[in-house]
């Protein structure tokens, strides 16, 4: 067995943190913004108040971590789904670069938009 030192611990940590954070926060957010408000079940708050809450520096930091870590979470899982589900292990370097690269790019864009 090739005992190559793995860099998986790094991505796994991001994956884990993203998994936990997204499990906690996303359902409520998605329900409110994506379903309840558009369907008129609840009345969405006015532009100004949304802005006030979401643009609060603390909220921005939370949002940044949520987005970035969740992207890494998704990237990590999707990468293994491609390996296992479609047996694309032989392309592993390419897939890893695309998945984690995508997450990294997404995080940068998010940071740029937020600040």
């Amino acid at each position, binding site marked *: 067995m090739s005992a190559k030192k793995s860099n998986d611990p790094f991505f796994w940590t991001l994956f884990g943190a*993203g*998994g*936990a954070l*997204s*499990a*906690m*926060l*996303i*359902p*409520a*957010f*998605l*329900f*409110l*913004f*994506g*379903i309840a*408000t*558009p*369907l008129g079940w*609840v*009345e*969405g*708050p*006015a*532009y100004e*108040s*949304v*802005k006030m*809450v*979401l*643009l609060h520096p603390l909220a921005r930091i939370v*949002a940044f971590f*949520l*987005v970035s870590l*969740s*992207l890494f*979470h*998704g*990237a*990590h*899982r*999707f990468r*293994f*789904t491609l390996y*296992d*589900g*479609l*047996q694309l292990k032989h392309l592993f370097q390419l897939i890893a670069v695309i998945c984690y690269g995508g997450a990294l790019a*997404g995080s940068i*864009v*998010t940071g740029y*938009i*937020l600040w």
Partner: protein
Amino acid sequence: MNRNAHHTLHHPKWYRVQKPIFWWVKRFADIRFIFRELTSLAVAYSVILLVVIYRALLTSEAAYTSLTTTLREPFWVTINVIALGAVLYHTFTWFNLAPRAIVMRLGKWRIPDLMIAGGNYAAWIVISGVIYLAYVSG
């Protein structure tokens, strides 16, 4: 290892099967697993949506209003319902598996797995409630 039996290792006569590409459609448990893994796409989609909302918010009120209007289209509502289903599945599987990795103790007493999972759910309900109240009360 059984060094003397090397000639039997990978014996040519032994029959081997290669897993078919779509191995996971045969068993319910495997489909469920692949579905769990695919929730990663829903998670990614959701945070991208969040970023889009931020961008609109930061651009102008008009942009924000137009976004909320777009989100009212049946197409997007459907997408979001699907995504929510997947994300909820992610949440449940995640909380149920968390105690597997984490062993918590109070003194000598090991906190049972069910309580750790329960704690996760409790926190989740509280946090979701807070978000909801903050949102509704504007």
